[in-house]
């Protein structure tokens, strides 16, 4: 038997109340976040170019690392953010969760793409080719496809509320399959290729390289969150604008409604 509790006041306006608070909070937070991100990234660049030593093997190209590695981490984190938001949206029906998931998709895709692009640029001097079908590279590429899928699904459905729910379902299915992909791709590569995977191991990183890397990672993380917050703000504003236009249309219709009812 369908039973829904009567909640006459749980209306659209109430749902918008939360985003309103979010808008205020994020409005004050934004400048600080952006400023801190810029400062840290500048400091990291300074460290990278003037303090960090050249790698004895890789020479100047090692500097790509300070962008590449944070981008790779954030690319992966973006999907985690989407998964958490999707869960929040499906379970708690919180509209902000959908806004967060929507804003995170292009951002995560951009960082993933950045990791891929810087990785391939780095690959040319290191491996002599822009691309190899190495496990890590392949799983990163598939992650990019998952982002593409999410964005394509959202763009293919008119009804925004529906699109949000369906993307949440896809986001959750994707996250359960993601570890399997990572694991399977790792396995696939070691099957077909000798263990000649060209990659420095964490511990071999010289402390002089590690410190700028950490600063840079922090800076890029703040940048990610700043952009994410900006994206969410834009999306909320866009939704409000849409609601206003719809209301306008409704009002126009309301005026002539009695004529239709006659």
């Amino acid at each position, binding site marked *: 038997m369908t039973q829904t509790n009567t909640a006459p006041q749980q209306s659209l306006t109430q749902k918008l109340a939360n985003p309103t608070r979010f808008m205020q909070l994020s409005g004050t937070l934004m400048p600080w976040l952006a400023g801190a991100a810029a400062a840290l990234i500048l400091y990291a660049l300074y460290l990278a170019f003037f303090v960090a030593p050249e790698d004895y093997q890789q020479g100047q190209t090692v500097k790509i690392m300070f962008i590449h590695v944070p981008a790779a981490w954030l690319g992966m984190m973006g999907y985690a953010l989407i998964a958490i938001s999707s869960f929040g949206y*499906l379970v708690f029906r919180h509209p902000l969760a959908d806004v967060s998931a929507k804003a995170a998709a292009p951002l995560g895709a951009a960082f993933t793409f950045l990791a891929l692009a810087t990785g391939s640029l780095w690959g040319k001097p290191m491996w002599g080719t822009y691309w190899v079908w190495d496990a890590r590279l392949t799983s990163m590429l*598939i992650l990019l*496809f*998952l982002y*593409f*899928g999410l964005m*394509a*699904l959202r763009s*293919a*459905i008119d009804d925004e509320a*529906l699109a949000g*729910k*369906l993307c949440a*379902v*896809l986001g*959750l*299915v*994707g996250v*359960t*399959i993601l570890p*399997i*992909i990572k*694991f*399977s*791709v790792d*396995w*696939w590569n070691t*099957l077909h290729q000798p263990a000649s995977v060209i990659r420095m191991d964490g511990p071999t990183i010289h402390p002089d390289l590690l410190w700028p890397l950490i600063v840079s990672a922090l800076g890029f993380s703040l940048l990610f969150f700043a952009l994410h917050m900006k994206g969410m703000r834009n999306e909320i504003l866009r939704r409000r604008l849409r609601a206003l236009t719809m209301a306008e249309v409704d009002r126009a219709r309301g005026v002539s409604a009695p004529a239709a009812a006659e």
Partner: protein
Amino acid sequence: MSGFWTLLKRDLLLQVREGGAVGTALGFYLIVVAMMPLGLGPDLNLLSRIAPGVLWIALLLAALLSLPRIFEADDEDGSLEVIATGDLPLELATAAKALAHWISTGIPLALLAPVLGLLLNLELSAYPVLVATMLVGTPAISFLGLVGAALTLRARRGGLLLALLVLPLYIPTLIFGIAAISAATGGPSGFQASFLILGAISLFSLVIGPVAAAAAIRFQTQ
């Protein structure tokens, strides 16, 4: 549960009545495999080396093309909404449809694979393994595909979008499917592990597929 069988029986009956569904999928499979030598060159050594991969990729594509039909017809003529008002939970109803897809598409494709293996000069010893691997792997194709079919039900450009959503999810099946066959035909060992993982992926999708698909459909009848 009786609703489950009723639905499964009807879906299979429709496949038969609408004639040639199975034949079409098999034909497509055949053509894609036949196109490969045209595209990649007729070198038999090369072909036999890449045969497991070609067979799996072509199978994925053939199954993929038949996915949109899982819900489309029932959605267009309003049946899906009536199905949603049945006693049967929607999760089981979607599972019945995925099962019908597997029986009418997955199994025939898996059984045809050895014949196409001949075209690609696949080692004879690989044939039993090929069929076994595909029979164990194809449920994942149907049940993960179910999610894609449900998600893209009302989306424009159904088929293409569906492919875009579903192919990444198919990658583990592809990799372990190929690994199992390669291992069995003298590649690095580990056939059993790949085979078991393949089965695990199928079981996993048996659970997750219908649940996600039912949720997606509920959202879309709105």
